[in-house]
């Protein structure tokens, strides 16, 4: 307790005690929803961080977070509502130190944030190594990491029946023991002001290497292509295609995901931004199998079904009437691509309709100063009652607010 008080005193005093930058980020998330299993959300987190260059070529970043949740989840302290976790612990080497050099490379290890080129595949933290080489305008990137020491809530890795069982087992805290790797090449402005990138990602279930006997092993490989850039003054586009091949027991399966977004910026009209996004993730149709990413994401802000077997269209309009305030409205429409039943309450398993429902969200971000931000989101999902959902399926809603203060 004395140490925590001392740290807070040091942070608040603003005294340059260490030859490094350090601080504390406090954030609070409160939410209310119509979900039966978790009608009230409450998460408070304190993240102490430290960052320093070590000589001309090394950087060290570290953070430790203490978290409280209203609903107790498995944590370091058992079933307590409190949890403690290493947020980031990363040592980076950068050569040469001058970023203007035509050839620079960086190599790092530890716990760090990483996103696969295909954002539908993996976004989260990794324990492992990463490297990046910039040659002229091209960037080559490589990462290798292990997920098995990460809190399972963070990675949401649900590739196999064992993963799902472990995820639902409250006695298990960590994500499944999986090894993931990715290599990416990014070529900016390859043609017609368009950036082109492609990457290859892999995921291996290590349960087969341990004494644990899995009921099924799922290994997956992904190939991603991304093309994006300016289409004209204030108009931008981004298209991505992710293809995957997986190994499930003795058999192989093929899957795909894709998306296209076009954004229009109108700086003269309260810095308005209009974006149309169309996304697809395969279901079990024809030669394709259901999309299995390494880290799952949900379809919408309220619609909390995993993004798979889906075709969605979203129109997002936002504007910035004040320098410190951005507000927006978003509407999404969801269709399924196969006739397989979704794992969702009130879903009509006998239905043959494709239309799943519509979601409308409102959001606002208020950042009155560099160290304080307040964001609020609310949304309602209207299931296709009488079509793919049972006639008595009710609308779902979610309201949440986050306050973040950086000391």
């Amino acid at each position, binding site marked *: 307790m004395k140490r925590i008080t001392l740290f807070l005193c040091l942070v*608040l*005093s*603003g*005294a*340059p005690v260490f*030859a*490094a*930058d350090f*601080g504390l980020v406090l954030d609070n998330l409160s939410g209310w929803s119509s979900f039966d299993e978790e009608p009230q959300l409450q998460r408070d987190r304190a993240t102490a961080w430290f960052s*320093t*260059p070590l000589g001309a070529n090394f*950087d060290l970043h570290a953070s430790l977070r203490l978290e409280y949740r209203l609903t107790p989840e498995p944590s370091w302290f058992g079933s307590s509502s409190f949890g403690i976790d290493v947020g980031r612990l990363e040592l980076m080497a*950068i050569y040469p*130190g001058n*970023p*203007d050099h035509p050839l620079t490379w960086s190599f790092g290890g530890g716990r760090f944030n990483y996103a696969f080129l295909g954002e539908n595949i993996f976004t989260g933290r990794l324990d492992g190594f990463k490297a990046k080489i910039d040659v002229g305008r091209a960037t080559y990137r490589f990462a290798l990491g292990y997920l098995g020491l990460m809190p399972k809530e963070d990675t949401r890795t649900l590739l196999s029946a064992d993963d799902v069982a472990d995820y639902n087992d409250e006695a298990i805290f960590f994500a499944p023991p999986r090894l993931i790797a990715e290599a990416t090449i990014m070529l900016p402005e390859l043609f017609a002001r368009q950036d082109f990138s492609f990457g290859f990602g892999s995921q291996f279930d290590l349960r087969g290497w341990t004494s644990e006997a899995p009921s099924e092993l799922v290994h997956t490989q992904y190939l991603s292509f991304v093309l994006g850039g300016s289409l004209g003054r204030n108009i931008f586009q981004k298209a991505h295609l992710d293809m995957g091949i997986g190994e499930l027991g003795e058999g192989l399966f093929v899957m795909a995901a894709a998306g296209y977004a076009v954004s229009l910026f109108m700086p003269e009209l309260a810095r308005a931004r209009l974006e149309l996004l169309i996304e697809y993730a395969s279901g079990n149709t024809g030669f394709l199998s259901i999309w299995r990413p390494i880290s799952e994401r949900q379809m919408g802000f309220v619609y909390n079904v995993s993004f798979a077997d889906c075709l969605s269209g979203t129109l997002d309009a936002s504007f910035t009437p004040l320098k410190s305030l951005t507000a927006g409205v978003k509407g999404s429409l969801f269709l399924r691509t196969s006739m397989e039943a979704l794992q969702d309450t009130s879903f009509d398993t006998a239905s043959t309709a494709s239309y799943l429902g519509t979601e409308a969200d409102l959001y606002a971000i208020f950042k*009155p*100063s*560099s*160290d*304080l931000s307040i964001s609020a989101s609310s949304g309602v999902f209207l299931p296709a009652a009488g079509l793919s959902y049972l006639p008595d399926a009710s609308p779902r809603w979610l309201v949440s607010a986050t306050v973040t*203060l*950086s*000391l």
Partner: protein
Amino acid sequence: MKRTAWTILFTFAAALGAFAQSNEAMDQILAANALQCGKAAYLLLVASDNIAEDAGDARSFDLLRELGWIGNKATAETPITISEYAYVLMRAFGMKGGLLYSLLPGPRYAFRELVDRGVIQGRVDPADRLSGQRAMHILGRVLDIEEAGG
């Protein structure tokens, strides 16, 4: 790199309105590997119209001390840290900071503010010394922000 330095030099000279007189002082600042507190004081106080351009390093530093914008241990010859430079810069130009800067004004939160605004860029530690060229780059970005209306 050279071109950028010259662009900033001209921007600075224009702000002073007297390129010829400040030329020598500018040469010394640009040549400095670790900018001293006195030179930083001169650069920032002249650029922000807080002191006349013929003031020199010593007088500029004395004013900085009088205003309480620099620590008591610093002398005109001490190399200035990037966080100290950020604090003097924010005070000299009357820049508003974040909540914590308003409550506890000082180098720590001034540094954070300028990193957040993209004024201080790249790999940097608050305790780092800064070269004259880097100091000019940082000042140039603040002048751009001021020109754009804060």
